[in-house]
């Protein structure tokens, strides 16, 4: 293949490569997860019956297990699930008593809004703080920003959430303490503004996961640029360090920053599970927790598949973004 063709086809090659990876990755991940769920020391019927043990006798328990198809051996159930999946049927959630695909469709929007907002918030904040720190290298803003990055990366998400709630919701009363909409109103009655105000605290909580890595990465890249001969040359002509960092350093730092950030999409998903639980956010994270405690295998597998595709796409986008930002990568394997 001559150089010209390779250059044009880098995207097609990358996509093909990833498609092949996906084809062996998905069944492997599903089989692994199904094994884990089957081995988990949670009896789904007991989790469903809960405190009503005295009202639900052994005969009725057998009827529940029968209705859920739990009586077949695990490999047979997995095979059944796989064959249904091939026909586009994700099965029925036992905790929610609804088709898994409906549940995911219903809840994915809320999760995507949360994760998407957090993604761009973290990118904007982390990247610009990183550049600022590089421009102010060694001075107090740099030390402050680096300090912030270290503190954020060491802070547990739930702690940050509680801090945010107690300051901005309970203390100052500026932002709502929970939920995706104001209590007492239907979806139709809720204004866009109210939805956005409800998004702020959860999104900030989720974004915290990604910010510190971004700050430190962008800073290191920009510092490397600022020390390069090109930057020294421009500085000698009177360009300020701030202008150098934000105008020219940004181009150098953006590619790696995007790569780091997109590759961390999995962490954002993890963070959203926590934030959704604390803020009563009706997304997939909340359903994941419920599915895990109820040993709801169909729902758990469905969500895992959706998450896997999401993270996979995040990583793919990271690779594409890196190649767009740095043409040198397109030719390398």
């Amino acid at each position: 293949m001559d150089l010209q063709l390779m250059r044009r086809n880098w995207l097609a090659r990358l996509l093909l490569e990833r498609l092949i990876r996906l084809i062996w990755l998905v069944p492997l991940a599903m089989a692994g997860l199904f094994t884990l769920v089957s081995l988990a020391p949670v009896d789904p019927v007991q989790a469903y019956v809960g405190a009503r043990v005295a009202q639900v006798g052994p005969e009725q328990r057998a009827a529940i297990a029968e209705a859920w198809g739990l009586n077949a051996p695990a490999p047979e159930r997995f095979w059944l699930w796989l064959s249904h999946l091939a026909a586009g049927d994700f099965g029925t959630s036992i905790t929610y008593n609804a088709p898994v695909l409906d549940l995911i469709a219903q809840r994915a929007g809320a999760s995507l809004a949360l994760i998407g907002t957090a993604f761009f918030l973290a990118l904007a904040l982390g990247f610009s703080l990183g550049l600022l720190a590089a421009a102010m290298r060694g001075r107090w803003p740099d030390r402050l920003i680096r300090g912030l990055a270290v503190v954020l990366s060491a802070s547990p998400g739930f702690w940050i959430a509680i801090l945010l709630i107690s300051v901005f919701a309970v203390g100052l009363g500026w932002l709502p303490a929970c939920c995706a909409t104001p209590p007492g109103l239907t979806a139709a009655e809720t204004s866009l503004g109210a939805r956005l105000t409800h998004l702020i605290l959860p999104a900030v909580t989720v974004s915290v996961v990604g910010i510190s890595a971004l700050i430190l990465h962008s800073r290191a890249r920009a510092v490397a640029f600022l020390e390069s001969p090109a930057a020294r040359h421009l500085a000698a002509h009177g360009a300020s360090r701030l202008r150098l960092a934000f105008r020219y350093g940004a181009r150098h730092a953006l590619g790696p920053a995007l790569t780091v950030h997109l590759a961390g999409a999995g962490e954002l998903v993890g963070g959203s599970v926590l934030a959704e639980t604390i803020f009563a956010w009706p997304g997939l994270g909340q359903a994941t927790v419920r599915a895990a405690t109820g040993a709801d295998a169909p729902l758990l597998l469905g969500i895992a598949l959706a998450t896997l595709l999401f993270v996979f796409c995040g990583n793919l986008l990271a690779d594409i973004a890196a190649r767009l930002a740095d043409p040198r990568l397109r030719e390398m394997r």
Partner: protein
Amino acid sequence: MSLKTLKGLVPAALLALALAPPLQAGPVPPLVLAVGGEPEGGFDPVLGWGRYGNPLFQATLLRFNTDLSLVGDLATSWSLSDDRRTWTIKLRQDAKFSDGTALTAEDVAFTFNTARDAGGLVDMKILREARVVAPDTVELELTRPQITFTSHLVGLGIVPKARYGADYARHPVGAGPFRMVEWRPGEQLVVEPNPYWHGGTIPFPRVSFVFGAEAAAIALAQTGAVQVAAVPPAGSDAPPAGMRTLHVQSVDNRGVMFPMVAAGGKTAEGKPIGNDVTADPAIRRALNQLLDRKALVDLALEGHGRPAHGPADGLPWDQPAAALPDADPIAAAVTLEAAGWIDRDGDGLREKDGREARFTLVYPASDSLRQALALGVAEQAKAVGIAIEPAGKSWDDIDNVMHADAVLFGWGAHDPSEIFALHHGDFAGVAYYNPGYYKNPAVDAHLDAAQAAPDFKAALPDWQAAQWDGRTGFGARGDAAWAWLVNIDHNYWVSDCLDLGPLQIEPHGHGYPITQGLQGWTWTCN
């Protein structure tokens, strides 16, 4: 516009959005409750919705009054045949579903027959058939006498035969006090009064249930967004401005289950049965006399609870005479000495026939309340020379050891079938019912007599006799099959403007049971 003005505007705009005027119709505001209780599977009574508290959308045949006596709701009269196997229920004629169609005997029979066959949380295997015998009369035929079937008359909301289908759980239609406006799963349920309800008018134009973690409920209450919030005991006594704390009594109880037979047996699956120490009635009785339950309430519940002496304290089928005076180490020591448990070697631990008074008390490791109780019990038992070793385990492990070790269980339902399941010899070793293999023919006879009673009220003396009939019983005065410890108070913050009327003793499950009398709540401010 300068940057400074812009900066000032942002929080102001956010504030304005957050405080957008709430929906207001007349002087009574819409209610918002944060008491949990979301049924993930939806609002289908046939699958178990409404068994712990108000079914909201559906009406039931009977209801429990605040004092747990039975009153009719859809039923105008109800009677049990002489062979105690057939209920005949006459229905009111003015009941309508929230879509305006009439509720008929067909709907009732359909609901009962569907619930019998469904693989949900309604165990109605004992129902042979429900049938319509007249336009206003339904017969429910059982396979054998069982007075606790009454709980289905109270608990099972009636669904419309014509509207019942796969999406019913998400779009319920019933003849109850409310109808659904919107349900956003995991988030919020919004309901409004059902204009066709036969029970009167409800003053609130709308009631919303906010779901989510306890912490979210607390934060909402602190920002004044909800009128009722279920809160944990810690910090419950510091309600936010405009709210008061309500500690509601419950039979949400915790107690120690004792293995009742000598060690050596094995279940069909090979799990060990029996414990030579707890099989001695003197040990069990002495612990019941010794335990300072008030101290346990203070220790584990910050004082928000009641000492528990039986599985149904304060309910109509409770027998207070079955309890022994507690917090009495001298009486406990006398009991132990009389039975031959004596500390001969002076190590602080009693022995009998060369066996030390030592046993393991298992609790679910994930439950901090039960851990605190187990440690408290162990500490108190030292005082009379009994060594109790608390051990936290997973439910899976508890399953394996619960026939041979004492276990800290929790129960509490508005249903005497619990008493039956926990103590009847036929249930020995069945699921979690009677893990200690307790069997006393006299107690079984009382329990069977209760099940064969001509009506719910007539069964009460038999339930009580099973606990203590003057000679024997499963209560502490008799066989002391359990050492009950505490009943947990359920704590709520309630708006100062809201009158909840009389409250019942709540069952197991903190939060949603407070809505039992929701249709009778009133707003006292203007």
